[in-house]
């Protein structure tokens, strides 16, 4: 019995290194889609853009760089996270699903037009760093108001980044909630909500300071997902400048 178990472990280890070729026929993809809809939409949504699970409509999956990794993630899940093992699928079904997952990526096959070096200069000139953190030589630098952009190139498509810069309020990241409270004493605090429950709320202001309140001590709480503290850069950037800035953002691929 013990020997059998050892053999199984060795077999799994060997599989870890195994390279996998995903099937590519129309029937395989159609079958992969059906399997995906049956088993993955629950968390990842029908087009992979997420719900409870990670965004699979990305150009590069951080944990699934190779097709072999992708197949193994589907087969075994990601231990310690909510990502379950699809142990109900045969190896063939796993690869069909994986092929469909790859087809979900909103890939911009055309290379991004702009120049990332110019983009970095524009990032500095327009004060993006006042609100955003990116990794630069010497460490993570920047402000706290907006999301960390160090790996934004892995998380979002170029099209989404363009929209984020031109009309920031159009789609806020899921966990971003602009908040404003007025205390009974008349003090106003604005920023992003970092915690809220039935009885308390905590807000981080533009300077990165945290403020935590008992709701019972507040005059008002306002939350507005239709607004963003980020200004629109629609009229501040020429078209080529916008391309450069996007090229810079796409180049930000710090591993998580």
């Amino acid at each position, binding site marked *: 019995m013990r020997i059998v178990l050892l053999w199984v472990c060795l077999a799994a280890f060997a599989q870890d290194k195994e390279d996998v070729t995903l099937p590519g026929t129309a029937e395989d993809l159609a079958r992969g889609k059906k399997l995906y809809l049956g088993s993955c939409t629950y968390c990842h949504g029908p087009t992979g853009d997420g*719900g409870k699970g990670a965004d699979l409509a990305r150009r590069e999956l951080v944990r699934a760089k190779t097709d072999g990794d992708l197949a193994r993630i589907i087969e075994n899940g990601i231990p310690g996270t909510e990502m379950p093992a699809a142990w*109900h699928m045969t190896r063939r079904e796993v690869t069909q699903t994986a092929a469909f997952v790859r087809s979900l990526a909103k890939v911009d096959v055309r290379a991004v037009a702009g120049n990332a070096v110019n983009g970095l200069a524009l990032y500095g000139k327009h004060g993006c760093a006042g609100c955003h953190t990116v990794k630069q030589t010497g460490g993570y630098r920047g402000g706290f108001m907006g999301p960390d952009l160090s790996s934004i190139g892995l998380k979002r498509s170029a099209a989404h980044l363009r929209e984020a810069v031109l009309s920031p309020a159009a789609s806020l990241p899921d966990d971003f909630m602009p908040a404003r409270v007025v205390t009974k004493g008349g003090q106003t605090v604005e920023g992003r909500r970092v915690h809220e429950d*039935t009885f308390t709320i905590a807000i981080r202001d533009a300077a990165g300071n945290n403020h935590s309140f008992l709701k019972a001590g507040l005059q008002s709480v306002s939350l507005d997902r239709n607004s963003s503290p980020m200004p629109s850069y629609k009229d501040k950037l020429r078209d080529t400048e916008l391309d450069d800035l996007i090229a810079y953002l796409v180049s930000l691929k710090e591993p998580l």
Partner: protein
Amino acid sequence: MKIAAILSLAGALSAQNVPFQRILDSQKEPQNWFTYSGNYNGQRHSSLDLIHAGNVKRLKVAWVHHSGTTESHETTPLVVDGVMFLTEGPNVVKSLDTRTGSLLWRYERTIPKDLRLCCGRPNRGVAILNDTVYYGSIDAHLIALDARTGRVKWDVEMADYKTGYSSTVAPLAVKDKIILGAAGGEFGIRGFIDAYDAKTGARAWRFYTIPGPGDPDFGTWEGDSWKVGSAAIWTTGSYDPETNTTIWGTGNPGPDWNGDVRKGDNLYSCAFVAVDVDTGVKRWHYQFTPHDTHDWDATQVPVLIDGRFRGAPRKMVATANRNAFFYVLDRANGKFLTGKPFVKQTWARGLDDSGRPQVLPGTDPTEAGNAVWPSLAGGTNWASPSYSPATNLFYVPAREQGAFYYKGEADYKPGVIFNGGGQRVVPDEQPYGAIRALDPETGNLKWEFRTHTPANVGLLSTKGNLVFTGSTQGDFFALNATTGELLWRFRSNGGMNSNPMTYSVDGKQYVAMAIARALYVFDLME
């Protein structure tokens, strides 16, 4: 000194025993909590009032017992004469001193390595009868343990875990029988309710929650779909001594979101079934959601209420269902008396005179997905409601949330997930929860207490004019049962997925709640 006291309590247990009559008369012993819902009537109401609306502000932690496992802690402890029995997922049963939380014994079951489950490996508690504790294990066995020592008396297989069966429900001990069912609703099982002889473990009867060939209602499943139609059992039923029936809520039909392969009403999924305790023969059934395609299990504890309906005394069973409607039925025959939504719903125009939902077109899951309220988690889920005879109010943990529902393909394979789709949150919706107090005669809202997020935390009402419950975000709190006013709260910062209970020992009342990975027990500051 302390050790001696513990030993004497354990001794007291073996001397006193819990014959069926004691459970039947449990209202005479409010210090004890003999069965999952506290009482056969499923009310989760206690007539203890040492802790009451006037002094609950002084409630504080008496002790904490850590589970040592990583599973969601969903147990309701039982308490008998100062001794507590509880379970910890995936595979542990424990006995504790109720005053200190000290461990008296611990039973751990070895679980098969190839066990496949959809939704974690929780367990909701044990049953006790005479000197034995009964435990439904995650690999679908029923196990009898010596109440004093935890030693196994017998172990029977209910069903083969390899084909997707499991057990998470607290069994119900009635007369000389132990009644429970099998979970596995996402695996294309054929659901059932079983009764076992409490002494020997021999199976006394099995009632399939899906009729087979020759049974009445067999035709409500197209083709062979009945064989894999699920209708699982995973929340404890109630017992009505007057009619000698036990009433259980059944799970959804499988595959969950793809109804094309199982045309028909799919009886007795999403229903209450009332079964004769001696024979296992069905007396009546009432299906809340015919041909469900949203995973709206009817696995809510049936709440038996003796009250008045339209001026006349009536024996009723009430439930707030996952499908968003509150129902009152006549529990002698399962006849529909009244029903009304208790949360936002967009799938039915209403209920007709027989209580059948008038389903709106276009509310089935599709490949592209469509938004329907309530969400998959339902208007409420398995967390226990409560009914207080003192206020004549029905309390329910309500969930205000919708979902996009998707239909996918589902091929049945033994032991394999059989879903046929899924759901996704509605973007930019601000879901919330509420504790709602309903008039059981009309379903009208009397008061509500809102929580920031929808909760799946059960309710306990007490004669002290209190309702205890919690939030998914870690607040355990007490409300005034008459008005809904917040009276006390405890910030645990741990999620809750369980039901509160209460007991007393040595003249002191305690309230117990499983929070995160520990059991918290509260008493009054001296």
